[in-house]
């Protein structure tokens, strides 16, 4: 163990019985277990996930090719809304007091 006079002739403590079997069995069980893979590795190895990934890429590519690049929706011309205003909205918006064509109230009529 050591050449120091205090420790000369001694050995390290004896390992308890069954510790060897128990320890090696636990270590072998860890070795035998399937290695744990990270989520990305599992995703790459999954056929379903790979198929879904390929389908989504194909759909994106098809959309990129088929859809027009400047195909934004045309807004209706502003003149159309101005030319034909909704009559109901126009009547609500028209204030009687500032309407040029509103007749003044008769004299003495304050009701």
């Amino acid at each position, binding site marked *: *163990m050591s050449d120091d006079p205090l420790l000369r*002739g001694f050995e390290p403590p004896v390992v308890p019985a069954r510790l060897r079997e128990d*320890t090696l069995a636990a*270590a*072998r069980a860890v070795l*035998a277990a399937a290695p744990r893979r990270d989520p990305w590795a599992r995703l790459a190895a999954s056929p379903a996930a790979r198929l879904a990934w390929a389908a989504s890429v194909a759909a994106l590519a098809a959309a990129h090719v088929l859809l027009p690049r400047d195909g934004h929706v045309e807004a209706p011309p502003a003149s159309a809304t101005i030319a034909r205003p909704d009559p109901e909205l126009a009547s609500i918006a028209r204030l009687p007091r500032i309407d040029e064509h509103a007749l003044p109230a008769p004299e003495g009529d304050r009701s």
Partner: protein
Amino acid sequence: MAGHLEAELPARDVSWAAALRAPFDALAGGNSAALEAIWDLSSRRLYGLALWRTGCEEDARDVVQEVFVRLASRRRDLSGIETPHVWLLAVTHNAAVDAVRRSARRRTEPLESAAHVAAPGSDPERATAASNTSRALAQLPSPQREAVLLHHVAGCSFREIAAITGVPAFTAASRCRLALARLRRLMGGSR
């Protein structure tokens, strides 16, 4: 400084450290039989370190099991480890420190019944001496006891002890010297 101190101390047995390289590489390659070779080379020293650090046989058993489970779970990294014996002892040290921390609540007084050293053969006089030495070792602070084991039993240099325990090499050397001086005082009557 550490090299100077080591020169004053007796030679150490480092043969087990070199012998660990081959089974470490074999285990890294998936050879589970290498576990037994590693056990045969290191188990008594690892168990000794765990026992000397924790002072409890039950904790020491758990620590050794934990070390080998970790060894198996990290087998892919083993080939990159330069000094297998330092790695094993460092894992054991860390597991033992954790075990002491966990069991600090349930333990009220240090256990002095653990056999820290064993006497080879069946000589009753040597067995008595081993028992006396074990009792004296049990009275040392666990960091000092650990330094003695790592240097005199596991054959580690003070630099390696520093790497294992996370203290400067000079501190490791000081702990070792203080431990031996105290051990001499404690065993003054029997030596």
